[in-house]
């Protein structure tokens, strides 16, 4: 166990040094083959919306895993991922560029923003689990600024006050007519994850809402 | 029954309207009747009326928990049409439509049946396929229903938005010209008046609390808040409460009761000349004689007898209305309300004898029972009087849920691909 966790640490350390921008990550991935490489086209590339007190911006691509596992496997998976999978509803854990969201009693979303591969980390775990790569399924949008709560509240029916939805809180929920995962990254910042195909709807909705929050 | 006419009005106008008689009697219940109908909505009152008129049975009580016409009859958006796909459905709804077309004269009560046309919008290719299937089937069944291009649809209903860039553009429409609306209260009141005149006792504020059966299982009468009332034949016509009543006789039903909401706008001068329905965006709209836009919403997702529903249901409906009619965002919702609709697994009604001798049931009309009122009442009266179904309602049995012989209009239309 000790060995395992050290191993994970050293891997993290090594990769932290070579934390790269997303384009480079894509290139690196592509370079492993010999054939032609193609560029990555993000769904919300170039979009940004600013209003008084709030900005809506797409976040860079990240590695994502939908992780499912029984309680018995959580410790092993946490070790392999280098972040303790949270057990408490509506909570998250963050460590070294890696986020683990509690989404259900046996479901987590693991996000790696450091260009490392959490799916590969899971693959090394023998304990029972299901890890499925969903890096491209989701698009992340940041809603940042003092009016972020008012903006998200335009379409999300949950109580988003700091007392009820504190920093680090995360929940799958709805925004207007779309499903999202909502994560409070800071007092004045939310990260919203949604599926790629309707990310335009979510972004447009947030932009309209931001305009109203500022009005 | 004193006849209603323009002359009667003129006569009464001269004497301050003091000569009108009560539209229906309000008697105390007798000890026993030949037939008891539970539920004084349009279907129940109509059943009593046709029992008296067509079958000569006049010793009838119609028992009503609240006030007559106060259930779904007085709460619905009054759309009338018969352009259903299956022969069975087209049969019963078109039978109703034919009766609508003379009902005011038959009852001597203006039910304001207004065949202004019901237009159902197609928003995608799947809709087009489904509607065309209906149109062809209707034509061969002798039921009018025609295809309109988007431009023709707009000509028929000028405020309709047919812009190609709409989120769900209009690709065409199915129009049933004989479809339309009627005045819901007048239907209940007209049947009540005509039935009462033929000797039917309408007992309001009389809640049925039990259905009594003899040792051989046959019905002997009902326990009510006004005491026991005997009858060898009991017809349950209680919409949302059908499960509750049938349970009293030990019959478990394939029904679930959901809240269904509707709303009207403030009255404005004529702007929507027909009924417009859209299954894809989930909304329907017409304009009442008074000028109110009458808008039907969807059901809430859970079983409820509360006659209320969630605001988000109205939101979804008005989203769709304003998508079809972008000119209406400045219009105002004046009133919203809820009913309780009983829904069967195949969304078709049950009009049938039951496993209990002398007990008959007419239920499961879901969100669309108003349009069937005269037809349903007529064949249900036949079923009770003859103790066998009319050929029109013969397919609408309880047994079909055992055999699988469903009449599933929704399944035939709603499966997307």
């Amino acid at each position, binding site marked *: 166990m000790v060995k395992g966790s050290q191993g994970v640490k050293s891997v993290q350390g090594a990769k932290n040094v070579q934390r790269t921008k997303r384009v480079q990550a894509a290139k690196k*991935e592509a370079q492993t083959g010999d054939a032609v490489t*193609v560029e*990555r086209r993000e*769904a919300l590339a170039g979009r940004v919306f600013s209003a008084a007190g709030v900005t809506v911006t797409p976040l860079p*691509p990240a590695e994502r895993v939908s992780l499912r596992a029984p309680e018995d496997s959580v410790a092993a998976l946490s070790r392999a991922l280098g972040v303790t999978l949270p057990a408490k509803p509506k909570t998250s854990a963050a460590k070294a560029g890696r986020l683990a969201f509690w989404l259900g009693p046996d479901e987590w979303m693991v996000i790696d923003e450091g260009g490392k591969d959490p799916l590969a980390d899971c693959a090394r775990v023998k304990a029972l689990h*299901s890890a*499925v790569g969903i890096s*491209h*399924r989701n698009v992340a949008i940041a809603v940042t600024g003092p009016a972020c709560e*008012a903006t998200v509240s*335009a*379409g*999300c*029916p949950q109580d988003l*006050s700091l007392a009820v939805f504190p920093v680090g809180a995360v929940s799958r929920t709805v925004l207007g*007519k779309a499903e999202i995962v909502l994560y409070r990254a800071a007092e004045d910042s939310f990260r919203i994850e949604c599926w*790629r*195909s309707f990310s*335009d*709807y*979510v972004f447009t909705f947030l932009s*309209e809402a931001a305009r109203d929050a500022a*009005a | 029954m004193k006849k209603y006419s323009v002359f009667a009005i003129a006569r009464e*106008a001269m004497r*301050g309207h003091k000569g009108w008689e*009560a539209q*229906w*009697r309000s008697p105390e219940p007798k000890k026993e009747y030949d037939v008891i109908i539970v539920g004084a909505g349009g279907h129940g009152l109509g059943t009593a009326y046709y029992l008296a008129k067509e079958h000569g049975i006049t010793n009838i009580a119609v028992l009503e928990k609240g006030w007559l016409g106060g259930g779904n009859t007085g709460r619905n958006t009054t759309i009338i049409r018969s352009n259903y796909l299956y022969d069975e459905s087209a049969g019963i709804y078109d039978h109703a439509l034919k009766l609508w077309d003379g009902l005011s*004269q038959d009852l001597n009560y*203006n039910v*304001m049946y*207004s065949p202004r046309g019901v237009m159902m919008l197609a928003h*995608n290719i799947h809709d087009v*396929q489904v509607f065309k*299937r209906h149109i*062809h*089937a209707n*034509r*061969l069944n002798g039921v009018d229903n025609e295809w309109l291009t988007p431009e023709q649809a707009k000509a028929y209903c000028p405020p309709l938005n047919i812009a190609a860039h709409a989120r769900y553009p209009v690709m065409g429409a199915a129009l049933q010209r004989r479809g339309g609306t009627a005045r819901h209260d007048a239907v209940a009141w007209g049947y009540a008046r005509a039935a009462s005149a033929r000797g039917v006792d309408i007992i309001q504020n009389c809640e049925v609390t039990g259905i009594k059966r003899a040792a051989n299982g046959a019905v002997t009468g009902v326990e009510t808040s006004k005491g026991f009332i005997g009858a060898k034949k009991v017809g349950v016509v209680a919409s949302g409460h059908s499960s509750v009543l049938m349970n009293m006789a030990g019959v478990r039903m394939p029904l679930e009761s959901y809240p269904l909401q509707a709303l009207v706008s403030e009255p*404005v*001068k*004529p702007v929507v000349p027909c009924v417009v329905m859209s299954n894809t965006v989930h909304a329907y709209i017409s304009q009442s*004689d*008074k000028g109110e836009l009458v808008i039907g919403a969807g059901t809430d997702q859970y079983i409820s007898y509360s006659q209320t529903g969630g*605001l988000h249901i*109205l939101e979804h409906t*008005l*989203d769709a209305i*304003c998508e079809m009619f*972008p000119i209406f965002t400045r219009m*105002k*919702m*004046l009133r919203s309300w809820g009913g309780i609709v009983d829904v069967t697994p195949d969304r078709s009604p049950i009009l049938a004898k039951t496993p209990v001798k002398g007990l008959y049931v007419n239920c499961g009309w879901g969100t669309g029972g108003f349009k069937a009122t005269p037809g349903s009442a007529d064949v249900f009266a036949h079923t009770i009087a003859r103790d066998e179904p009319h050929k029109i309602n013969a397919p609408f049995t309880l047994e079909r849920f055992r*055999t*699988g*012989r469903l009449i599933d209009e929704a*399944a035939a239309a709603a*499966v*997307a*691909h």
Partner: protein
Amino acid sequence: MADSFRISGAGRFSHAKTARFTFDDKPYSGIEGDTLASALLANGVHLVGRSFKYHRPRGILSAGAEEPNALVGIHRDAARKTPNVRATVQELYDGLTAVSQNRWPSLSFDVGAVNDVASPFFSAGFYYKTFMWPKAAWKSLYEPKIREAAGLGVSPDQPDPDHYSARFAHCEVLVLGGGAAGLAAALAAAESGVRVILVDEQAELGGALRFESAARIEGQDGWTWAQGIAARLKAMPNVRVLTRTTAFGYYAQNFVGLTERVTDHLSSPGMDQPRERLWQVRARRVVLATGAIERHMVFADNDRPGIMLASAARTYLNHYGVAVGRNVGVYTANDSAYAAALDLKKAGVNVAAIVDLRDNPSGDLIDQTRAAGIEIHGGRAVVSVGGKLRISSMTVQPRTGGKNQRTIPVDALLMSAGWTPSVHLFSQSRGKVAFNEQVKRFLPGTYAQDCISIGGCNGTDELSTCMDEAYAAGLKAAKDAGGKTAKAAKPKVEADEVWSRGMLGAAPGAEAGTTVKAFVDFQNDVTAKDIRQAVHEGMRSIEHVKRFTTNGMATDQGKTSNMHGLAIAADELSRAIPEVGLTTFRAPYTPVTFGSIVGHARGSLFDPTRRTAMHDWAERNGAAFEDVGQWKRAWYFPRAGEDMHAAVNRECVTVRKTAGLFDASTLGKIEVVGPDAAAFMELLYTNPWQKLDPGRCRYGLMLREDGFIYDDGVVGRLAADRFHVTTTTGGAARVMNHMEDYLQTEFPHLKVWLTSTSEQWAVIAVQGPKSRDIIAPLVEGIDISDAAMPHMSVREGKICGVPTRLFRMSFSGERGFEVNVPADYGETVWEALWAEGQKHGACAYGTEAMHILRAEKGYIIVGQDTDGTVTVNDAGIDWAIGRKKTDFVGIRGMKRPDLVAPGRKQLVGLKTKDPKVVLEEGAQIVADPNQPVPMTMIGHVTSSYWSENCGRSIALALVAGGRDRMGETLHVPMPDRTIEVEVTGTVFFDEKGEHLNG
């Protein structure tokens, strides 16, 4: 003439800031802070509208949301025309344009007023009794005429350029109503530290303190105190104060809908401001402080312009500085009208007389009035009034009758029959009201939710009692919702206004037996006489009375009329009021715009649009799109000069000749992972899965428990414990839900998990004889030879340097691959494939060609060739059922008697006798075309196309006993002709399936 009724020194707004406006094109001037009503009154204008039925001239009754008469159209511009706006609520802004409604040709001369003369014919419910002959005339004549006459304002006729917004909010204490009680409750709650939202429909907080000039609180006059508290509350971080905001609906579990009017009072609203904002508030506790509404007196011609509620006249004076007349009369059964008379008198307006129904009115207020020199006629009634477009006199006589009449000239008449507590929201919360015999009011009785009523809406009349009650309620609500104890001291009331109760029903002179028009419901023209007639005609339930007369169904929702109507009906029935019952209070409290409820959900935000990763490429390349659920799918790719038919023909031929690229990304994808994955698949699909080797694929068929086809799709086994399942486009979400349902609740013992990967993978179908040649240069790490990768297999590797799940499969009948790549690479991989494809003459094809190609092969589309009533056997795909299986979803349902009965409709092919004729999808099929209508229909066409590859039309159909009818001639009757068809098998092209490896 301008501003001639403005009293200098009265009112709370500076006279310096003027606002110009027009009413029916005539220019006027008011001041900022006015409502349209106060500005009109300041200009001496009382006539503002016409009633619904009789087109009677109408003035301004109230100074608030209960207004039934003064409804106007507000026209900001051509696209911003709002009908039925209450002049008493509309705030004045510079440049406002108002028009009167329901009149022609003009407000003062309205032809429709002939209805008033003919009114004896238009009694309650008259339309139920006539217009029945001749039958056809209802539709052609009567109804159109009725409709023309009905309606009030005119609907907008252009799309609304304004936008609307929405917000969810949460608080511990929601206070509805910002009068003295609401302010005190909000203060108490706010001081406890909990989140408080305070809502009021007016522009300013203060409620009845707007007109209650005698109130003194904390050493200040009531209004000043209220503004101080309002400012204090607004400054607190835990308080949100929403003015110009109406709580319109009280829903389950303390969920309250509010609509905030953001710009309707502004002269030039900012572009970013929404016109209105919907607030949906979830509150732990709700404090109802909605006040009370004054009732009018029900007497003959009580609707003449110039007759108004006493509190309204007092509001116009004390708040707006406007006198409603120069010589006013008062008709009351209640003390509060005296206060109005006193205020007017003090402001220099002559009060001609107070007519009080009570024999010996007494008390301080009456003494003061008398001392001020105002004539009081106790025990008397107003039995008629002079003037049509404006009241000119009132005729007074003893309430007990007699000839002792006296006519007093007046130019305005204030009336008060007492106050009705606003229990609307309480009632909407499903609380039960109880009738208090002593005060003749319905008051909150049994509560259904966590709320409390205080002040006027709770029947509490005295300000000091209100304050005590309110403060205690605010504290308790906060405490119950988790707050601390408040620090602030309870506001102290030093001077009160105390009113006695008043009366319900018709006043003397309008009692039973009279024929005068004494209005109960002004807007709907319902008189006391109409209500009696309804009772007389057998309407015993108040709901029947309401519906028969339309009392209380106008846009004011019966705020002033309901109690009077009830009392008159009860009187006529000789029953007590509670026995007759109260009609249900329904949301909304006041009418709410559709826009407010819709909020952001317009245009592109009406419903999410889903686009694939290759959408932009398709758009750039001229694709036409079709909507499939929320998805936009490329339908076909017309080239210059091509119509749809030509484009589709070309696409179909090209795919079979060389190859085509098709965007299949919208198909649902589910990754089924775990040691019991195969066991789970066995239960959810009809097919066997245990023996499917990793790397191989199988067509999967899913049933509902009732045995009908639910969904289908190709499933690839990636590993022993991992399946890549595909579903139909429309089925993706419900199949996932269906699978989760069984997994979580019926088969929770299985160790398997489901993850939606629909959007992880962009899917490019490369179909056609050249498909392998096209992908070959781009694929690495996968041997794609037939030997290594046969039809229905799946491999993982790379394409264009990015990871792929490569399926060898075909929905066209040609050799084919489906290239799955991570979605962000979808478009660039497509472009790479496109470039390769160009070398071979390949095309891009859309859903239409896809449909034709699969129909040529007889492949079904679930949802088109099946419709939720089709069994496996009906569809002719029994081979998809694992014969040895003992359980799967649908195994029992599919064996029910009717599902295995002979004569069911079966899927067959149809060939028209004339190969050029293409059947219409949905067309019905008969055996005997010469039978009369209604015909016996034995089936219908499910799919039908022109097949360029077959050189003829082809069709699939569900036909009763179809598989026993091979070669039979059937008929498709169309409106203009009958088409002969031959029943065939379902495969029209390459029956042997040689193209799969060709």
